């Protein structure tokens, strides 16, 4: 443990991080957003999930600095009388949880498929990669929207809303696995020809062991490179799905669902229900993208395009 820490302390990764103010600032903002959202139950002044505490009479109040604002509600209230600040904190937590878990699922699917395709090659490889190509040509967002629509038709709207968190993770996970599969396959192909793999095979190790214990750890860095940006993509997909009404229900809103809910009031000049969650969403995606750019530059200086 201590050794790992020392190794990390003297690593190029940390060295370049500490010399890049953009990376430091965006990491700090990201950290603050994550901490705020996960401490939401403790620090939020109101509990937006507690229906008893919500009063419809408080609905559509503007933020505190405007004429009709009330001190109880820092950023105003939404159409149902929920404190917007608390709702945003809870919503951001939902968005981040879905984003990270969906990326873990896509990474798992993609890594397995990419490993198998790259290691075995031939017909298996051909089939799996064509599948990935086809799915990518449809764009991940469209695939996610279609799967979401199918799930909603299959389960019915009410059941869909009950399990929306898990369903969204599955939808985004299935929609984006080809990104990981392609990356993994490319780096497996590069590793497979190296001598240590040959050596492992000569010793008589099983394919499964060679794949997981030998090739996988060495093929990991491109996976890390795309992971950061994938989290941003997943958060964005979740917001888009929720905005279309295929995501989180308004009783348990994510940032996208909040923006959607506010859109109804928007035309009549009640801008804050949409604007604040929208702003938080953009900041969240923006800092993750900045971090993603930085990670890509550090881990893979040669691969600077796309």
């Amino acid at each position, binding site marked *: 443990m201590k050794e790992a820490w020392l190794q990390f302390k003297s690593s190029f990764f940390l060295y370049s991080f500490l010399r890049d103010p953009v990376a430091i600032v965006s990491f700090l903002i990201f950290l603050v957003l994550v901490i705020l959202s996960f401490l939401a139950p403790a620090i939020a002044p109101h509990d937006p999930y507690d229906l008893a505490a919500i009063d419809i009479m408080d609905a559509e109040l503007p933020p505190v600095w405007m004429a009709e604002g009330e001190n109880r509600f820092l950023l105003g209230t939404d159409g149902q009388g929920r404190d917007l600040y608390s709702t945003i904190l809870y919503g951001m937590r939902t968005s981040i949880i879905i984003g990270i878990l969906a990326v873990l699922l896509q990474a798992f699917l993609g890594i397995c498929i990419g490993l198998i395709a790259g290691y075995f090659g031939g017909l298996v490889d051909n089939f799996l990669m*064509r599948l990935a190509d*086809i799915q*990518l*040509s*449809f*764009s991940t*967002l*469209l695939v996610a*929207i*279609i799967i979401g*629509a*199918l799930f*909603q*038709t*299959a389960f019915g709207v009410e059941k869909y809303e009950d399990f929306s968190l898990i369903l969204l993770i599955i939808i985004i996970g299935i929609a984006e696995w080809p990104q990981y599969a392609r990356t993994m396959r490319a780096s497996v192909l590069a590793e497979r020809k190296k001598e240590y793999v040959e050596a492992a095979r000569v010793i008589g190790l099983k394919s499964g062991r060679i794949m997981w214990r030998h090739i996988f750890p060495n093929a990991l860095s491109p996976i890390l490179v795309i992971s950061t940006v994938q989290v*941003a993509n997943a958060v*964005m997909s979740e*917001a*888009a799905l929720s*905005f*279309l*009404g*295929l995501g989180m229900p308004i009783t348990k809103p994510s940032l*996208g669902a909040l*923006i959607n809910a506010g*859109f109804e009031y*928007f*035309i009549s*000049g009640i*801008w804050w229900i*949409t604007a604040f969650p*929208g702003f938080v*969403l*953009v900041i969240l*995606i*923006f800092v993750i*993208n*900045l971090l993603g*750019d930085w990670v890509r530059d550090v881990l893979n200086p040669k691969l*600077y*395009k*796309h």
Partner: protein
Amino acid sequence: MFAFIIRRTIQAILVMLIISLIGFSIKHQFGDPVRDLLGVSVSEAEREALRKKLGLRDPFFTQYFRFLKNAVKGDLGFSFFYKKPALEVILKKTPATIELVFASSLIIILGSVPIGIFAAIRPQHWLTKVFMGLSLIGVSIPVFLTAIMLIYIFAVTLHWLPSYGRGDLLDLGFWQTGLLTLDGLSHLIMPATALSSIMLPLFIRLIRSEMMEVLQAEYIKFAWAKGLKRIRIWFVHAFKNTLLPVITVGGVQLGIMIAFTILTETVFQWPGLGFLFLEAVQRADTTLLVAYLIVVGAFFVITNTVVDIIYVFINPMVRITGKA
């Protein structure tokens, strides 16, 4: 070369078969053609009779082949809500989406080519830094949020532009266009801008990075050494070779654009395919949903195939060896 086109076409047909199979299973699982045809107020005995007559008791694959045969003839089923053949409903909404996608593509091309080239040949210029910064912010703003912001600024606050719909249309018989009336064009500005807002930064970054790589190449150095004019090196030698990867990526991006039309059209209530699709989902109009899947799927498969074939034509390396 010829073999490549044949192979690519067979592949396209295979993909279409897979899409149709998926589409049909959805319809088979969730759709109710009897309800689509008769409505809900008909006795059970009559329903059963119609089910038998329509062959809904046949085995899955018999039904699938019937579906396929009809689909090839252009019959994609009957929309429950519109009381019209699904394909007819879709074709009626297609012009709106095509015009929207066309206008956005225009914005993307006219914006990204000059900015991308500029950013590549003047990487240290302050304007380049501004553009690159803006483009990173641009990719971080979801399309629907851009759309909402545009509505707030230009429709709600300034009252300059209309916030929803297509406005006055000119009927050309087979095509209702909004491009030829002033009102139609003013309705198009905001949706097209919103739709291009996420692709524009992507293309600027793509063109820039591809062009910067090309500018490092030996033959460009050689061109400089020969003393060719700057303009010629940049635009003829370098930019032409930048276009190759841009076209490949462009084909894929077209698919992404279709996905984003669903978001844009929802915000602006643009009466196109994306809006239709979301309505079909909300109304559980399975036939229409599946028809949309198949039409959009066909559109993708065709564009991707064409892009691949064009790629082979313009890439001398592939053209000569005959391999892709």
